[in-house]
């Protein structure tokens, strides 16, 4: 009985989180903090997907340096980022009726995947400095000589 309740809750949370993440094809979620719906959606999404910061850091730091640095420093940094995004998601969720600045930038972990996340305008040290391989636009193709 307990496990079925947990399963239902987890399914509802996951559905909410997924539906809150918009298609990344076009716009940006900048300014989401001004709307209660935006804050609620981002809060749920960031609590559910905060863990994606881990592979994001590993992938981008590996691309910027090498796989060894990615797996060590990227994992460590990603763990901090995971906690940060999840906590910030909870903060957005709890304060959703009140308009605020954006607590997390980019608003979703999958948005502008090469941009290092900032929370309350601050970033962790040791970030990468080049575009990673998983952005939706084709930087590599445009660098044709």
């Amino acid at each position: 009985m307990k496990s079925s309740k947990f399963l239902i809750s987890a399914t509802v949370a996951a559905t909410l989180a997924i539906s809150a993440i918009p298609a990344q094809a076009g716009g940006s979620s900048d300014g989401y903090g001004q709307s209660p719906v935006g804050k609620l959606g981002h809060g749920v999404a960031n609590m559910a997907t905060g863990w994606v910061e881990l592979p994001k850091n590993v992938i981008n730091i590996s691309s910027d340096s090498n796989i060894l640095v990615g797996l060590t420093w990227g994992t460590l940094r990603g763990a901090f980022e995971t906690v940060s995004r999840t906590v910030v998601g909870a903060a957005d969720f709890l304060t959703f009726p009140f308009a605020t600045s954006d607590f997390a930038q980019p608003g979703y972990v999958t948005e502008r995947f090469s941009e290092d996340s900032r929370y309350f305008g601050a970033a962790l040290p040791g970030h990468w400095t080049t575009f990673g391989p998983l952005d939706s636009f084709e930087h590599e193709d445009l660098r044709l000589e």
Partner: protein
Amino acid sequence: MKKTTLAIALGMAGLLGGCATTPHDTSALDAKLNQAYSGDFGDFMHHEMLAIENLQHARLIRQYWKDDHYWNIDLEADALAAGDRAIKHRQDSEAALIRWHDNCGRHTEICKRLDDLETIHMEKVVPIAYFDTAKSAPQNVNQAGVDELVRLSKKFPYLSLDVLGYTDTVGAKGKNKGLAHRRAHAVGDLLGKQGIAKTTRVRGLAVGEAGGPDNTANQQNRRVDVRIDSDVNFHRK
């Protein structure tokens, strides 16, 4: 046990065989792609495309920069490098187009048209007709000049021609002005009859006495010239 091992080995071999890909022969397609990009015009297309792509990239990065996106990446250097590449490809593209234009052996018609354009964009005056003293009907017509004007007027429908009437200094200045006017109109009518395109703007202008000592007959001054308009914008209508 042996049978199981054999079955696994066969299964693995089957899987690997199924996954193996046969290389495609792309030579026919490669030949077409090379043909599309071959020569000076192909170079022009190649560099023009890259110039546009790099320009778009530079603009995209400038927008990120303005929006404070990708703050961790040196966008300025990236955008400036893309701008440099766009400039270089634009220059290469222009150079390829000039080479293509200069290679008239292969596209004579294009070069002829461009030469014609170059010609009409320079101010050009063509003597068309000569007259007897006090007459407004042409005594001698430069038929080759008329034919050239007819040809240009058909090729460039919005050509503009100024028909300039002159006289020598025999007679009163006022009368000579009127005579020059009649001569210009006579040549304008002549051009219409010879087949100047209807879209061509023909304007008669009486210049009057062409110069020289007073009361002196001069066959070279009893003439009508046609000036081809050099207004580039007018031809772009």
